[in-house]
């Protein structure tokens, strides 16, 4: 028998207080990824193998840099919560906590390194 009040249930948080938010966040970032990756794939195909001057010239345009940074944020949030589900499915006990920590650090590291690189290239450093 549920011990929660109707109000608590209506807020939709569930016992872990974050399930529906997790579900929604995964889909919001998925939608963003679809749009931003369509753009980024075209950019990467054009820039793959190009010299540094060409890459810098492309990233110098604010819209290109902004779209890339948006992609990096959306992508790393999406992959962090996606991997969190995988870890929670297969790993239990103390290892789980360690892997969840490593997961957050990995996603954050990818985000910070990539965003810094885009900013530096865009500002022409």
């Amino acid at each position, binding site marked *: 028998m549920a011990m929660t009040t109707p109000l608590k249930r209506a807020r939709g948080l569930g016992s872990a207080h974050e399930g529906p938010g997790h579900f929604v966040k995964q889909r919001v970032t998925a939608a963003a990824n679809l749009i931003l990756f369509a753009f980024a794939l075209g950019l990467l195909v054009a820039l793959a193998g190009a010299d540094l001057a060409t890459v810098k010239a492309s990233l110098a345009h604010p819209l290109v840099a902004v779209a890339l940074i948006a992609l990096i944020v959306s992508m790393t949030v999406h992959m962090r919560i996606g991997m969190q589900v995988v870890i929670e499915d297969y790993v239990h006990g103390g290892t789980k906590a360690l892997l969840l920590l490593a997961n957050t650090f990995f996603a954050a590291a990818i985000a910070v390194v990539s965003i810094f690189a885009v900013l530096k*290239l865009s500002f022409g450093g």
Partner: protein
Amino acid sequence: MAGVTPERARPRPLSPHLQIYRPQINMVMSIVHRITGVGLYVGSLLLAWWLFAAATSPSYFEFVNGLFATWPGMIILVGFSWALIHHALGGLRHFLWDTGAGLDIGTVDLLSWGSIVLSVLLTAGLWLYIACERGWVQ
């Protein structure tokens, strides 16, 4: 919380799992969706590495570009692009299912076969375009 439940005299019954079911295309595509997701997670290192190299120095950027242009590098890039396309198509499928549509068996099978066939075709098309654009094929 399986970790804190005391041992039972008789284990709780488990629902049938992978080894019980005959593989079906929708379940295989569900598994592939997760595998490509994990693959892309690791593959995000490639994008970060490429950007990091570009932001470091011209010579290091040239070195990393050279690695991507080797045969193993190209195979990894082809695999990455296929995983990205397959995972994106899988995501589109899930968006449709989230609305409650397309959940009858015929449509589920069609969408599942569609995601594997279309992902291979789109990946082939992408690399054919790259090959033509770069002059690898005449």
